[in-house]
């Protein structure tokens, strides 16, 4: 007989029945309506009249176990030992006793956790890990997110923007964040082809997979050295080869940069839209990326000034046209803005009907 305990795997996540606040469980599937009480506070009312207040606060992307325990202390005190997180990584406290709201808000204020992010406000920024974890990160998304948040703080704790403002940041073209469908987004970019390290390629990489990884067929085998050659003119610096093979070193701090994208959205009320290129080059300038923050500010200011109530950035641009967008924001339009990769034809203007400015 072995004294070893059984090796357990594949238990899956904890069951939601043990994780959901009992009052939410009691009214499960029986909710009647919700209403906005104040920025960051939504009241949910069930068919039998039960009321809960969901209080939304922002937390940094990287936190310590101490922070999580503090969060638990607050939840034990004000929301009966239960919390939830939103799909944009805010925390929500579930308050069943209205009299506890003021205390909770005071405590969150004292700790400096912003309460907001509901209705027509800045939503929490969706972003990637950056230099704290990732080998393909060109920029540090957590740092840029913090710099943007400091500048746009008021838009999170108020709800008087023309529409929702969803921002995303991706450290590289792998785009682990929701950059392709956000109102405003930044992406870390390379501007030089990879430098092939024949030794690493020949030892660690599967050549056919590496050749196939290139979307523009810029990589071909070099059998004599068990490596590959890059046709540099065809390379569009996507970095997919580096993801597949560490011998295709593509980081180049001297030339790496950021790009800014606008007008995407992924919700109902009309077909979703992709984010489109606004600024092809912004310097990678840590620790606070001032050029990126100012570029975001410029677009957001123009949107606030010119949009109708209810219009997100993409709705606003659709109404006024891209030619007017570039006029109003004073962003220069360049050859980089005209698609020459794939699916480009539907973006070409096939009519004489356009605005002059």
């Amino acid at each position, binding site marked *: 007989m072995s004294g070893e305990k059984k090796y357990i*795997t594949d238990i899956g996540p904890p069951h939601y029945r043990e994780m959901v606040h009992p009052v*939410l469980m009691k009214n499960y599937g029986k909710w009647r309506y919700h209403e906005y009480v104040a920025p960051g506070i939504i009241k949910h009312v069930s068919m039998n009249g039960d009321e809960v207040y969901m209080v939304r606060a922002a937390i940094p992307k990287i*936190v310590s176990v101490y922070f999580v325990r503090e969060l638990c202390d607050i939840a034990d005190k004000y929301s009966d030992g239960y919390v939830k997180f939103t799909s944009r990584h805010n925390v929500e406290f579930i308050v069943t006793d209205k009299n506890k709201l003021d205390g909770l808000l005071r405590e969150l204020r004292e700790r400096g956790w912003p309460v907001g992010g509901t209705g027509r406000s800045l939503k929490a920024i969706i972003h990637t*890990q950056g230099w704290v974890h990732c080998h393909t990160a060109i920029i540090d998304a957590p740092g840029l997110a913090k710099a943007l948040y400091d500048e746009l703080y008021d838009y999170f704790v108020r709800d008087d923007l023309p529409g929702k403002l969803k921002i995303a940041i991706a450290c590289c073209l792998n785009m682990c964040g929701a950059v392709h469908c956000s109102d405003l987004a930044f992406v870390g970019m390379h501007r030089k082809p990879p430098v092939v390290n024949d030794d690493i390629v020949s030892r660690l990489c599967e050549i056919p997979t590496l050749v196939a990884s290139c979307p523009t067929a810029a990589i071909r085998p070099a059998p004599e050295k068990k490596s590959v050659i890059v046709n540099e003119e065809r390379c569009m610096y996507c970095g997919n080869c580096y993801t597949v093979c560490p011998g295709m070193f593509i980081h180049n701090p001297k030339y790496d940069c950021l790009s800014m994208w606008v007008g995407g959205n*992924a919700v109902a009320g009309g077909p979703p839209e992709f984010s489109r290129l606004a600024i092809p080059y912004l310097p990678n300038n840590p620790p606070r990326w001032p050029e990126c923050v100012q570029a975001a500010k410029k677009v957001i200011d123009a949107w606030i000034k010119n949009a109708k109530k209810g219009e997100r950035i993409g709705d606003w641009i659709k109404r006024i046209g891209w030619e007017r967008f570039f006029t109003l924001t004073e962003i220069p339009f360049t050859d980089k803005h005209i698609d020459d990769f794939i699916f480009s034809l539907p973006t070409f203007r096939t009519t004489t009907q356009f605005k002059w400015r």
Partner: protein
Amino acid sequence: MSETPLLDELEKGRWPSFVTEMKRMAAVKPYSKNILLQLERSYVERVTHWKHGGIVGVRGYGGGVIGRYSDLPPEVMQTPEVHTLRVAQPAGWFYSTKALRKLCDVWEKHGSGFINLHGSTGDIILLGAQTASLQPCFEDLISIGFDLGGSGGDVRTLSCCGGPAFCQWSCIDTLDIYHELTMELQDEIHRPRFPYKFKIKIAGCPNDCVAALARADLAIIGTWRDSIKIDQEAVREYAKKGVNIAAVAARCPPQALEWDGKELRVIPEDCTRCMKCLSALPKAILPGDDRGVSILLGGKATILQGAFLGWVIVPFMKADKPYRELKELTRKILDWWDENAKTRERVGELVYRVGMRNFLKAIGQPPAPQMVYAPRANPYYFWSPEELEEVK
């Protein structure tokens, strides 16, 4: 003199700082301090100092742990192993503080103490553990009821909105579907064997709060087939309070609402379930009763053939427990993709390459006008030999 002058700049300002959080761990764990110092160095040099992943993991699993090593020499980075564990979150990101505290204790014991709540796909991210800590950390996680999520060429950790736990719009039991599908696919999540990643997200209504249609290979979105339900008394109540009901009707994209000053009427066959009127008048309008899901396929970010938005492959399907039809369809799609895709080809790219015609045949779904904005505008379509016999 601070050891992290550049990162210190990110402790300024009103928004809570991740640098402050990292410093709290760095103050008690030399291992965590090493990670912080390497981050500072990246800020100075404007480049990452992580190498390509290595093969690390826990016994019996192929995914769930991301191997990570520093590229700095050992005299600079004494602890070069900084692996990450992806831990599957409970459905809808609901937690008891009891469970969260246990998680903190395990992670403080075995790792850096840095956590993301949550990562982009939805997992709890435990950021920074040495190779020797991975197995004991995993076993302790299992003992407190948590398990790993997905990574690499596997079904990634699913995610879903809070659904019926607090939202009146949820047309399906998102939490239960998340949990049931996750349990059904444990092997596919934990043992990578597919051409690339496969993401599944479940949203309770067309508002799609988890952005399933943009971010999931398989988007399961709650919807209804009959009519929205309008409480006329509540509409008049809104009108009395000064809400412009005529404007709400005018903003209906398919012009399916009519307001005569007393009654708000809907033309059900014209409604496209965009949720605009429900959002404008939450006390007065609810989804219909004949509920199920629309299923969209192919959503993904740019790598490689550009960003794809998911498109309709099943306009409507019932989604009642035990979700047999949903599970069967998921397996059919996974099998077909596994059989036919090239390395690193997402399912949407595969369908784009071989055509919806072949895909629909493989999964046994009939074509429907709901799947396209418009029929094709070119005459180059295919006939199978069987069809040629039919039209003779």
